[in-house]
């Protein structure tokens, strides 16, 4: 089966972003960018499905400016077979992203689409579920285990109280959680090879999708700062302060 993986170029997880002085957005100029960590897990899972013989082809797609080709090349170096960029300089909202991905699903007919559960920039946690709705497919979100068995996939999900396992008819949407796998690193020969793998580019117009935003960001502000705390010298001082000063014991 064909597996489609959607990835996003985001600020590197180790960067602490700063709000711009004019409070319109966060500062992204000259900030290190990377594949969203949950999307890396999605790529890895698709590669493992291919290694287990369930997947025959891994197609990776990303939506964004030409800079996101860098992340697509990384995915190819990790082992994806081919890549598709949906070229836009806009920042489409989750609904528009889901519509674009649904157009790709119609064109490519994958049996499974794997996405990260959320991107660490917008923290929306929406796209996979929205795509599942638009494609009329079942969804296995926040996956910690994925097992394909015939025309079904069993997905174990991280839920608030523990773990839940569901069975989904293929084709299905899976979104990854932290513990699903540990992504591999790309080797140098594979990075060289990836340069020759096919990378196609299309526009939202070519896919016939309207990506106009529904939300307007009115302001982006810093969160309230916590007042500086104090260091205590001992456990007894700590307990004393929690009892008298903070009043929480």
């Amino acid at each position, binding site marked *: 089966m064909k597996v489609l993986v959607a990835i996003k170029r985001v600020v590197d997880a180790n960067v*602490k972003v700063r709000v711009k002085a004019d409070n319109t957005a966060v500062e992204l100029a000259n900030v290190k960018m990377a594949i969203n960590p949950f999307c890396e897990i999605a790529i890895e899972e698709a590669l493992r499905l291919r290694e287990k013989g369930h997947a025959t082809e891994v197609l990776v797609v990303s939506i964004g400016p030409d800079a996101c080709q860098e992340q697509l090349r990384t995915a190819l170096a990790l082992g994806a077979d081919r890549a598709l960029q949906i070229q836009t300089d806009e920042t489409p909202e*989750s609904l528009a992203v889901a519509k674009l991905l649904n157009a790709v699903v119609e064109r490519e007919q994958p049996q499974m689409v794997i996405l990260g559960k959320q991107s*660490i920039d917008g923290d929306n946690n929406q796209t996979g579920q929205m795509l599942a709705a638009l494609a009329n497919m*079942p969804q296995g979100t*926040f996956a910690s285990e994925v097992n394909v068995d015939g025309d079904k996939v069993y997905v174990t999900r991280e839920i608030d109280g523990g*773990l839940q396992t569901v069975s989904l008819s293929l084709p299905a949407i899976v979104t990854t959680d932290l513990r699903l796998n540990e992504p591999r690193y790309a080797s140098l020969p594979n990075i060289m090879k990836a340069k020759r793998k096919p990378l196609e580019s299309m526009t939202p117009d070519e896919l016939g999708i309207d990506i106009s935003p529904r939300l307007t960001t009115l302001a982006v502000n810093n969160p309230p700062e916590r007042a500086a*705390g104090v260091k205590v010298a001992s*456990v007894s001082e700590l307990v004393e302060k929690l009892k008298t000063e903070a009043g929480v014991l």
Partner: protein
Amino acid sequence: MSNSNSILVVADHDNNQLKAVTMNCLQAAAELSAKTGGSVDLLIAGSNCQAVAEQAKALPGVTRVLVADGESLTHQLPEDVTPLLVAQAKEGGYSHLLAAATTTGKNLMPRVAALLDVAQISDITEVVSEDTFVRPIYAGNALATVQSSDAIKVITVRTTAFDAIASEGGSAEVVSLSAPSASGMSAFVGEELSVSDRPELTAARVIISGGRGMQSGENFPLLEKVADKLGATVGASRAAVDAGFVPNDMQVGQTGKIVAPELYIAVGISGAIQHLAGMKDSRVIVAINKDDEAPIFNVADYGLVADLFEVLPELEAQLS
């Protein structure tokens, strides 16, 4: 379209009782209702969930409790709940659909939003007006104020940002809805739920969390003993989960649970951005770490630079 500016809240429940987060979500709904003038209805989708309906009808500020009780809704799979909610949104003429940003709400609401062809506004922390909300982005390092132009606003609520409403004092009308037939494309297979006498992390008054500094899962009982004295719940950082010390449902952070207890004690946690995102709105934060440069001290009200293996037994003893 009699309810053209009313609010529908999706209840979080386990077929036996409402989850506490529903009361926080209803507070967000009440604040919204104060701006729109619309009434608040509560939807309970489940099976054999009449006890939940009984509990719900006493909630103040709720006009109607809509109960869809049927086999297909036993596990509230999103494939089965979505058609119900989409139909209610359209027929009931609701202007806002709200759910708590739990794993249930996060799983369901975007599916509903997409079928209504509207954006979702995730994890709101403030209601500014009927169409404008504040939500954290970039792991809470920034707060975005966003305005929706959609006719129906689909929203998930960060429940730590809203106080719980009272659980009694109301007298809502209970309305039965017919449950949809199962979609057939997904099925519940099983679950493993953590069994604990402690409160859930998102409802705990005191949380004591361990990080990589705990060195192994076998040392977590040191935290549990302190937790016993405090009536606290034990949490963990992503590093501790990644290292395999404890299960993921204990994770506090950007990609785990967001908590804001009265007292949060971080033990052997360095304070990575993604952990701070999950706990920095706690009322009082205590950090115990032997590295005095650890970023956790920047958000802590009280810091103790010391070896946690000495501190924890001493803390347990002093709390006795």
